[in-house]
C-alpha cells in the first residue's frame, strides 16, 4: 500500500520543518499566550468593574472576537496592522510589518478575548469574603487584586489556561491563509515543491497529534497535582 510513497522526503526536510517551521509555531504560541493572558486579565478586570465606561467596551470587544471566525480575524489584522502602525508612528506610509509581528499582534489580541473569559471565571470563583477582608485590612484595589485575588485566580485556572494554550497551538496552523511559514506552512511548501502531499500532510498531522496529546496528558496530570484540597 505504501509502495509508491517516498518517506525519505520527510527525513530530508526535517531541519527545515523544525528549525524554521516549528520554531515559528512554538515561539508564536508562547508569546501570544503570554500577551493574551496579560491583556485578557486586564479585560477581565474591566468586565468585572462597576463602571459602564469600562465594562461595555470590554464586553463588546470580547463578544466581537468570539462571534467571528478566526480566519476572518487573521485577514482583518493582516491588512489593518500596517495602518495601525502608521497611525501610532505618525508616518506618511502604512508601516511595513513583518509576518511574525503581524501574526503575534493578531493572535495576542484574538486570544485575549478567550483568556479574558477564563480569568473572569477564575476571579469570580474567589469567595467574596477575601475581597472584603483585604479591604477591611486597608488594602487598596491594586494591592488586593495583585496580592490576594489574582494569584489564587491564576492557580485555580492554570489547567484551563493551559488547555486554551493547546488550542492556540493548534490555531497557529491557520497562519497558512496568509502564506506564513509556520510548521504546517513549511510542510505544505515542501509538499508542493516535491509533489509529496500525502507524506508531508500525514507527517504534519502526526506531529501535531503527538505534541497536543502529550501536552493535554501533562495538563491532566498537573490538574490532579495542583488541585487545592478544600
Amino acid at each position, binding site marked *: *500500500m505504501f509502495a509508491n510513497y517516498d518517506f525519505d522526503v520527510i527525513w530530508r526536510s526535517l531541519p527545515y520543518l523544525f528549525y524554521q517551521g516549528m520554531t515559528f509555531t512554538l515561539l508564536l504560541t508562547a508569546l501570544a499566550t503570554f500577551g493574551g493572558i496579560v491583556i485578557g486579565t486586564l479585560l477581565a478586570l474591566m468586565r468585572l468593574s462597576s463602571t459602564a465606561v469600562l465594562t461595555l467596551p470590554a464586553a463588546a470587544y470580547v463578544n*466581537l472576537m468570539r*462571534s*467571528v*471566525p*478566526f*480566519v*476572518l480575524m487573521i*485577514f*482583518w489584522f493582516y*491588512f*489593518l496592522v500596517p*495602518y495601525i502602525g*502608521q*497611525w501610532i508612528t505618525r508616518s506618511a506610509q*502604512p508601516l511595513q510589518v513583518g509576518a511574525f509581528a503581524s501574526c503575534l499582534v493578531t493572535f495576542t489580541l484574538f486570544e485575549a478575548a478567550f483568556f479574558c473569559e477564563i480569568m473572569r471565571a477564575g476571579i469570580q470563583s474567589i469567595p467574596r469574603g477575601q475581597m472584603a477582608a483585604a479591604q477591611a485590612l486597608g488594602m487598596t484595589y491594586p494591592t488586593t487584586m495583585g496580592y490576594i485575588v489574582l494569584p489564587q485566580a491564576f492557580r485555580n485556572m492554570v489547567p484551563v489556561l493551559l488547555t486554551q494554550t493547546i488550542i492556540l497551538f*493548534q*490555531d497557529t*496552523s*491557520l497562519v*497558512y*491563509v496568509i502564506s506564513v511559514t509556520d510548521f*504546517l506552512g513549511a510542510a*505544505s511548501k515542501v509538499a508542493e515543491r516535491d509533489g509529496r*502531499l*500525502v507524506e508531508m*500532510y*500525514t507527517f*504534519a*498531522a502526526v506531529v*501535531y*497529534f503527538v505534541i*497536543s*496529546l502529550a501536552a*493535554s496528558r501533562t495538563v491532566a496530570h498537573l490538574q490532579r497535582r495542583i488541585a487545592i484540597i478544600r
Partner: protein
Amino acid sequence: MNYHWNWAIFWELSPDGIHSYFQTLLLGTGWTLATAACAWIIALTLGSLVGALRTMPFAAAVRFGNVYVELFRDVPLLVQMFLWYFVVPEIVPHAFGTWLKQLPNASFYTAVVALGLYMSARVAEQVRAGILSLPRGQRQAALALGLTLPQTYVYVLMPMTYRIIMPPLTSELLNTIKNSAVALTIGLMELTARARAMQEFSFQVFEAFTAATIIYIVINIVVTFAMRVVERRVAVPGYLGFKAPAAGH
C-alpha cells in the same frame, strides 16, 4: 489614513459578470450555512453515539470512544481538512480516489465530512459529561424495570442528557458555523472566502471584511436567540437553568 473608502462597491458587478459583490457575499453566506448545517448533523449523530459509548459498562467501548475523541481533537482542523482533501483520495483504491477527485463540489463534501468529524469529538465530550451528570439511580431504575441497555439510553438517559447539555451544544453549534471558514483553504467559496475574493478584485479591503463580520455577527445573534427559546422550552424543572413560566392569574 490614506485609505480610499468606497461603500458603493457592494453594488458594483463582481468579476463573475452576473452578480454584484453584495450578491456574491450572500452566496457565500449560503455555502457557510449549508456546510455548517450538514456538518452539524454529522457531529450531533456521531458525537451522541461516541459520547454514549464512553459511558457504557464495556471497557472496549470506552477505550474506542476515548481514542476517537483524542484523534479528532488533537489535530488542527486545517490539517484534518488537508488530510481529507489531499491525502484520502490518494490512499484509497485508485478508482475510488479518482471518483472522489472528480466529484463536483468536492471541497463542499470534504469540508462537511472534516468539520462534522472534528466537531463530533467535541459533541461527544459534552454528551459524555451530560450522561455522567445524571443521578446514577436513573440508569439503575431503568435497568431494574427490565429495559435493555440500548432502551435505557434511548428512552431514559439520552432525552435527559440533551435537555441538560443544550447550552454547551449551542456554543458548539456556533463554533461549527465559525469553523466552516477554515474550508476556504480547500477552495470552498464560503463567506470568508468571498470577502477575501472581493478584497482581491476590488482592493476595498475594509469594506469587504466589515460586511463579512456583520453577517457573521447577525448569524450569531439569530442562532443564539433561537437556541435560547429552545433552551427555555426544554429546560428540566428542578435544575438551576430552569426558569418557571410567569404565573398567570
